[in-house]
């Protein structure tokens, strides 16, 4: 655990010293601040628009942070060979990967908390009152990001940084179209196409399971079972993908 913690803290420190992080954070705050303008367009539904836009903005910018930072921070370590000095010390390869993962989670978590507090503040400022359920919605976005970062770590050890970013982005997009994929399997004429789409459906997590934005924005009830199921689902996928990443990295030559 010691090595994982040390590497995680260093990864977090590296992210904090990267300007890209602040750029994304700045854009996210700007979007939330400007949501009032969109709110004006919808009479009587201002707070809903602010919440909707704010949550979508948090999800989008956290996704960008997760994809960019994950691929940068893991691939850069391998490409710039700084990993040589880590792995020649009493550090296991899986400890290195889990340390990087934990550091990235910390980066996303800090940004998530910051963005959520700012959103709650803007909702209150624009007259929407204090809505604690916003924390639930953003918390589930955090779970989604934990799964996505696991994929980014996997792609970082499998391929080059650019391809890694593209693949992680593809997982995010396909993961949100999961329901559509399922419907597609029923309507595709050929069996080959159906098989391919089915494989994709089962390989990529259904990110819509973590989406509670509509329920929070429109004050709809959220069954506890749905939250529990989403948490178990997220843990399962994260664990599985991280194990795959560790297994692959264990046998990789660092040239």
């Amino acid at each position, binding site marked *: 655990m*010691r*090595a994982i913690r*040390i*590497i995680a803290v*260093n990864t977090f*420190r*590296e992210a904090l*010293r*990267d300007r890209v992080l602040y750029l994304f954070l700045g854009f996210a705050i700007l979007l939330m601040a400007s949501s009032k303008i969109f709110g004006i367009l919808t009479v009587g539904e201002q707070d809903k628009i602010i919440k909707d836009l704010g949550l979508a903005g948090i999800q989008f910018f956290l996704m960008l942070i997760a994809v960019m930072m994950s691929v940068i921070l893991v691939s850069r370590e391998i490409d*710039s*060979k*700084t990993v*040589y*000095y*880590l*792995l*020649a*010390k*009493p*550090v*296991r390869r899986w400890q290195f990967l889990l340390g990087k993962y934990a550091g990235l989670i910390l980066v996303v978590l800090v940004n998530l908390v910051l963005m959520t507090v700012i959103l709650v503040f803007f909702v209150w400022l624009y007259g929407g009152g204090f809505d604690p359920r916003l924390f639930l919605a953003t918390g589930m976005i955090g779970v989604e990001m934990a799964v996505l970062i696991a994929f980014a770590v996997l792609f970082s050890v499998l391929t080059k940084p650019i391809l890694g970013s593209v693949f992680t982005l593809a997982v995010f997009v396909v993961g949100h179209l999961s329901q559509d994929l399922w419907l597609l399997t029923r309507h595709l004429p050929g069996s080959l196409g159906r098989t391919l789409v089915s494989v994709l459906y089962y390989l990529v997590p259904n990110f819509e399971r973590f989406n509670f934005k509509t329920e929070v924005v429109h004050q709809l009830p959220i069954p506890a079972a749905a939250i529990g199921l989403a948490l178990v689902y997220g843990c399962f996928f994260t664990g599985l993908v991280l194990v795959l990443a560790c297994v692959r990295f264990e*046998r990789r*030559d*660092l*040239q």
Partner: protein
Amino acid sequence: MSEVQLRIHDLWKTFHPGLFESSVEVLRGLSLEVDKGEIFGFLGPNGAGKTTTIKAVTGLVIPDRGEISIADQPHDSMQAKRLIGFMAESPYLYTYLTGREYLRFSAELLEIESAEIDDRVESTLARVSMTDRADRKMRTFSKGMLQRIALGQALLGDPQLLILDEPMSGLDPVGRRDVRDIILEQKDRGVTVFFSSHIIPDVETVCDRVATVIAGSVRGIGAVRELIAREVESYEVTFTDLDPKSVTTPVASVHRGSDAAWVRVDAERRDTLIRELADRGARLVSLTPVQSSLEELLLRQYEEAAS
């Protein structure tokens, strides 16, 4: 009998770069043993397999076949890793950290007690002459300064086996002298030093023993003097009482002094020449083997391997 600190036995490694590129066999049954407390040089031209061997020892490359042990422990065990201090060919460091921050980070990974970290970092910075520049971000460092910090992180854990890949490349004369001093100082402390280089004077100056590696396998191993002595190519023969130009045995060069004459003869014609001198009544004054330099030895091994 001396204790073996590093044992490499029958190491094979082939890299497979990609679908459309041919495989490269880098190590071909490489074997060697490094005794405890010695400075062992690993000498060879670029592409001979030196860095791959070092990466295999440090666990960065996974060999296809073969065994590596450090103080009788498997090289990839945590016990073995705790004994190693490693410096790579180029100083691959986190440039967003300061030199001091990096050494602190390394000390934590080396499982040094928290109470001890500050003292250890400061003494290491002093050892590599970086105390006054330790709070600058490493992105502002020159290559020599980065090299010093990289050497510092290798020394930080008081290793029993110091593995240095081309430690003096890219350094100015002062830097090279400092690294040489540190290597010799480590030997005095009982540390085993295994270092690769293609700069022969570096190896000749500090090493107790060397291994020459060509095309992925060891071609020669022993003390520098011993290796060179095995490679006698010719002899200088000094004699009197005979005109050297009248010698019929083919010789490479002829010189006549006021008292004596000397000729250089190939090793295989030495006995023929001595017999001729004796038959013709000449007096043999001296017979001196002409040894090749380590560089010549390496070049010859390289040519043999190529042919």
